[in-house]
């Protein structure tokens, strides 16, 4: 009955299965949802979505599939009430601007366009976070109308339209490719666990003890083993300053997560591109500087190298000797990158810039080539794919 819905969900990346579909149908038969669209939305969400990161995708698909599905006439207004839009507008717009809107065909036309624009945005939202209002030509941007603004209005419950709960997309922040907190990151980084027994023997080795006791003819022979620890060693190189200032928060969170997850974590800073020197504390850079060669000597190839940076710079900063913006580098960044990737066989680059935008920056493409395509976006999905690759 709802096969297209399930297929659309799967196409959108919500892993709904036959089992879940059948249980939804059974719940419908049991009359759990009653006859309200709203209940059906809640029920299908509870049955088909099992991860809050997919809730937003579900909302989007639901909106597309059941477009035009409204509650019976008379119970709810068919459109977003215009007087409500007008109310917002009156608060924020001058009379002149109001006249301009009238020139655009009045509120009705504006709303139509707004709706269309919203639909468009649903389509290409994945990965992008550009809302209406960025383009200078958009009537919404110019007058301070954007969907966020509309959503603020929706907090007024008397206008909250039950049918359109999913259009509010309250779960947008939970989508896997968008928000990240240090907690989520920790979960993602856990994939990188590699347990090993090292250090002092503090735990009773039961199997060993039994074996030894049996061999001993029954008299007790205790054996101890060291505790299990996460033995993964991670060397974190972080780009700092300049264009990275926009990403400070997310980098901090990554850092917190990594610090608590890995027992063996070493971190060093660089600027734009790794050259012959890195430093430990950005504020006392001169005193804490170390040569990169020392890094290569100190940390063996069993360390996993994770570079965090936006890789956004002039291409010459990578390929030209002396290209660095802050000092004269004898050897180009490319040489240093090659040295790093040759030494650390397990390496990855995390880039806080959205993946869709990478190809517009030449230096990112160069870096991607130097990293042998092991650049991942700094999102939950990116972190996971990085962890999988590094754990191999």
């Amino acid at each position, binding site marked *: 009955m709802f096969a297209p819905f399930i297929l659309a969900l799967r196409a959108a990346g919500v*892993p709904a*299965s036959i*089992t*879940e579909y059948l*249980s939804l149908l*059974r*719940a419908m038969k*049991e*009359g*759990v*949802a009653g006859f309200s669209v*709203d*209940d059906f939305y*809640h*029920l299908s*969400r*509870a*049955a088909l*979505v*099992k*991860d*809050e990161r997919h*809730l937003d995708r579900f909302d989007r698909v639901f909106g597309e599939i059941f477009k035009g599905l409204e509650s019976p006439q008379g119970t709810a207004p068919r459109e977003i009430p215009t007087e409500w839009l007008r109310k917002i507008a009156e608060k924020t717009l001058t009379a002149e601007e109001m006249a301009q809107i009238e020139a655009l065909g009045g509120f009705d036309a504006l709303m139509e366009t707004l709706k269309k624009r919203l639909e468009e945005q649903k389509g290409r939202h994945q990965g992008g976070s550009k809302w209406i209002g960025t383009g200078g030509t958009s009537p919404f941007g110019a007058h301070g109308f954007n969907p966020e603004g509309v959503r603020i209005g929706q*907090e007024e*419950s008397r206008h909250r339209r039950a049918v359109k709960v999913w259009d509010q997309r*309250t*779960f947008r922040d*939970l989508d896997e490719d968008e928000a990240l907190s240090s*907690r*989520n990151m920790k*979960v993602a980084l*856990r994939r990188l666990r590699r347990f090993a027994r090292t250090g002092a023997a503090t735990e009773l080795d039961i199997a060993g003890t039994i074996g030894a006791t049996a061999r001993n003819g029954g008299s007790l022979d205790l054996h101890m083993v060291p505790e299990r620890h996460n033995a993964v060693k991670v060397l974190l190189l972080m780009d700092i300053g300049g264009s990275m200032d926009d990403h400070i928060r997310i980098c901090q969170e990554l850092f917190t997560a990594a610090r608590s997850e890995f027992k063996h974590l070493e971190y060093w800073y660089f600027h734009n591109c790794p050259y012959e020197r890195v430093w430990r504390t950005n504020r006392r850079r001169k005193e804490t500087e170390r040569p990169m060669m020392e890094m290569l000597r100190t940390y063996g190839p069993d360390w996993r190298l994770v570079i965090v940076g936006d890789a956004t710079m002039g291409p010459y900063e990578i390929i030209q000797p002396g290209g660095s913006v802050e000092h004269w580098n004898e050897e180009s960044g490319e040489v240093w990158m090659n040295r790093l990737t040759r030494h650390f066989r397990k390496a990855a680059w995390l880039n806080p810039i959205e993946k869709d935008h990478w190809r517009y920056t030449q230096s990112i493409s160069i870096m991607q080539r130097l990293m042998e395509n092991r650049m991942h976006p700094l999102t939950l999905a990116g972190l996971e794919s990085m962890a999988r690759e590094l754990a191999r």
Partner: protein
Amino acid sequence: MARFKGTDTYVASRELEVAVNAAVALQRPLLVKGEPGTGKTVLAHEIAAALGYPLIEWHVKSTTKAQQGLYEYDAVSRLRDGQLGDPRVHDIANYIVRGKLWDAFEADAPVVLLIDEIDKADIEFPNDLLLELDRMQFFVYETRKTVAAKHRPVVIITSNNEKELPDAFLRRCFFHYIRFPDRETMEMIVKAHYPEIRQDLLREALSVFFDIRQVNELKKKPATSELLDWLKLLTIEDMPPEALRSQDAKTAIPPLYGALLKNEQDVHLFERLAFLARRRGQ
């Protein structure tokens, strides 16, 4: 069929009611996730109260094994009894210790079974319970006996998202994510707990509370349970509402902040913000 609705002490949204009713009707487990302090565990208590079923709680820890929920074979007691010549030793059934799931399956009336914080346990834990939760039965190897549920219990599972749960497990559950309540719902929740609270105090406290949640840099944002604790403190101390209003809530440390801010970095952050605000004010 018994239907779940919000109770006097618990405000349930419509979506939560639908999810719970679906789980009850289809006798499937309901997986509940949400920010800490949004009432995941309390939900199981309320469902039990609403349906009039007894509640069996199984709190999972990092060391909990799935087998412990079914039964445990107490070999050490048996060894001791064997050496002391206790006649009980001949029947192995005397040394089978029942787990929570067994209790829930063998109960004479339907019960609500809460498996709390399933993500705390080992990553394989949910997988080990797949069949047991699906068929609601398990096999006791020691006594060669199958324990099957007399009445399928209503199973509520909570998770704090520390580990990802396996797909096979998720496919068998209904899922509900408890969203952080908005102001109106929050007011209803508070009133459900403290019906006698003074309206002006509540209004000021909620403003302060939602302002605090707006501060993005907080390590741990206060949630419903923190708000309730704080309100209780405020009423005990008989704090006048004006004390909350005195300054811009975003920049001043609220009275009795210990109930809301649980992290010294967060307290420092607030002190710094308050300091900056004072300096700007001069």
